[in-house]
């Protein structure tokens, strides 16, 4: 199966290991992975801040980059959901609405793609230790991908999953919210970190680089002995 990877800008620039793990994981699952070079960012940072016109430039670029793809796979629920929203954003734009709809129908978040399209629940991964999973808001509530990551994690050998208390509460990332409303964001991420600490785990796993940068950045600043991992990195341990 031919898969076009939408790596996301955060992964491209700051968290390349997530991208590498995604590629290796998909290849192990017999996918042929390509990386359309024209891709940049889904447009969410500007869009969510209210700069809709500006964001549309990034969105059009994404549409152009992936139009010819068969499957578009993205290791972020939030960015995948952004692409799904393009159709609504370009509503009434005769040139772009149809093209937006077209790519939305081919876009999948990584775990959703593995479970729903590849029909694989056990990727043969192994990782020893206790872990908890933070379900990111956009992925669970907006994209409605709730079970796929947990299904995959349950099959990872050696991994003991512990439920995160107050897991549905946002970690306080929210893109520019984290800097614009820094004081509120601090309280939110602190509560999230305390919840993670309560579970007494080795690993905090998530499916969105943004949330992980936020929670992980706070964990590192507090010098806690908890490793933050993207689910692609976990599923690529074997």
């Amino acid at each position: 199966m031919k898969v076009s990877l939408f790596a996301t800008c955060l992964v491209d620039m700051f968290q390349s290991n997530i991208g590498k793990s995604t590629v290796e994981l998909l290849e192990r699952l017999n996918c042929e992975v390509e990386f359309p070079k024209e891709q940049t960012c889904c447009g969410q940072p500007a869009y969510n801040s209210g700069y809709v016109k500006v964001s549309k430039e990034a969105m059009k670029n994404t549409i152009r980059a992936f139009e010819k793809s068969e499957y578009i796979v993205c290791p972020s629920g939030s960015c995948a959901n952004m692409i799904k929203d393009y159709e609504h954003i370009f509503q009434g734009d005769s040139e772009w609405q149809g093209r937006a709809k077209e790519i939305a129908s081919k876009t999948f978040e990584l775990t959703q793609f593995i479970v729903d399209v590849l029909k694989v629940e056990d990727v043969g991964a192994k990782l020893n230790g206790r872990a908890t999973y933070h379900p990111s808001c956009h992925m669970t509530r907006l994209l409605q991908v709730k079970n796929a990551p947990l299904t995959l994690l349950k099959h990872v050998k050696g991994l003991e999953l512990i439920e995160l208390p107050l897991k549905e509460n946002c970690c306080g990332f929210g893109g520019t919210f984290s800097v614009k409303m820094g004081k509120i964001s601090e309280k939110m991420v602190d509560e999230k970190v305390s919840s993670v600490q309560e579970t007494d785990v080795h690993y905090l796993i998530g499916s969105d680089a943004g949330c992980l940068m936020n929670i992980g950045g706070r964990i590192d600043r507090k010098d806690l002995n908890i490793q933050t991992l993207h689910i692609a990195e976990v599923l690529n341990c074997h």
Partner: protein
Amino acid sequence: MAMKISNDKFTDRLETNLKNDFMRNAVASAQERLQSRRSLAAESLGNWEEWRNHGEEIRQHVLQNLDYYLYELSENVSKRGGHVFFAQTAEEASNYIVSIAKQKEAKKIVKSKSMVTEEINLNQHLDEIGCSVVETDLGEYILQLDDHDPPSHIVAPALHKNKDQIREVFADKIEYTNTSKPEELALHARKVLREEFLSADIGITGCNFAVAETGSICLVTNEGNADLVSALPKTQITVMGMERLVPTFEEMEVLVSMLTRSAVGQKLTSYITVLTGAKQPFEVDGPEEFHLVIVDNGRSSILGGEFQSILQCIRCAACVNACPVYRHIGGHAYGSIYSGPIGAVLSPLLGGYDDYKELPYASTLCGACTEVCPVKIPLHQLLHKHREVIVEKEGRAPLSETALMQAFGFGTGSSTVYKLGSKVASTVMKPFVNEEKIKKGPGPLKNWTEIRDFPSPEKERFRDWFEKRNKGGNPS
């Protein structure tokens, strides 16, 4: 109290409330309790999504036909011996109510909880003509006694206060001598308020739903205070926001069932009361005179526009109880009687961006509000819509941010510019990097790195790795 509850700047309000640990703990535990009760009550119906679909279609139908239903309502109220006053503005509404109070030579007025009377600053107008106004909802009564402390939640207004603070207020203001046990406090309030009910000249209520077909109004409480407010005084005045109506009892039933489950997790609250007009001949209790005041106060300017769906709101506060931002800043930080996600959408619409432009940004757009809304208001999308209006129509965004976002558009709209920019990022950021992490970032990163590390830009971007690998280089 008008809608605006504070003259402090948003940042100052945040500062104060983020430091208030008692409040933050109280809000967190209330949220957890109310959320779990709500989801149990919703799940017990088995098909909650169908209920939400029905709730939404009822509210949308009413808004689309609002002119007809308000006409029908007013005709039927009048047929049942009631007076109807349509008030375009807050002033018109309070002036009318003040004129009735003067005409009745009212000394004492008892009130049951009503957000719209707060919105039109009614109590102050009545105070000014020498009427003593007594709030009878226990939470509102506590706040009123405490020198008009503003409400911090639309369903549980005194959520931010603890029982010891309440005991002190009671001791100070209503000769209370007992302990801070909630039962004892409530019993004392019961005794004091019973006298107020029996001696009041006018009763003022809000309106959860008006029923167009019969001219009825429906009041939902757990305490029973609205029933005494409407049964004992000779004159009753009901104040409603113009959108709060339903076609018939059958839709009222559905929305009341959803309201009580969403607000407090009860199948029904203790008292659901349906009042129609003035009392009938020979009835002993009930008002001799009934007035219905229907208030616009900015609502019609929302109608027909991109924010219309906010008028679907039935004031259950489920969004408030689910909001992770409200959880940490509490109600007062919003600076409006309407707090939480509903407040962050509604307050700028009713009160303007001058006072409330920060509120739409006090959200991570996590969607928790939208998920729990019983009438399916896309709250997080409306918060986003406000941001779009603020940036693109109002031009109120800070210049530094606009410049940054223009750069973003330039950098991401074309892959050539993006590739160049992202390639030099690691060099530009190098002076700030320490063990692969940025601990003190420049510019927009400063707020981030005040409390957390930021990853340093990768020396080799993912795209470079991928390209090298495809060319047959060694995968690292």
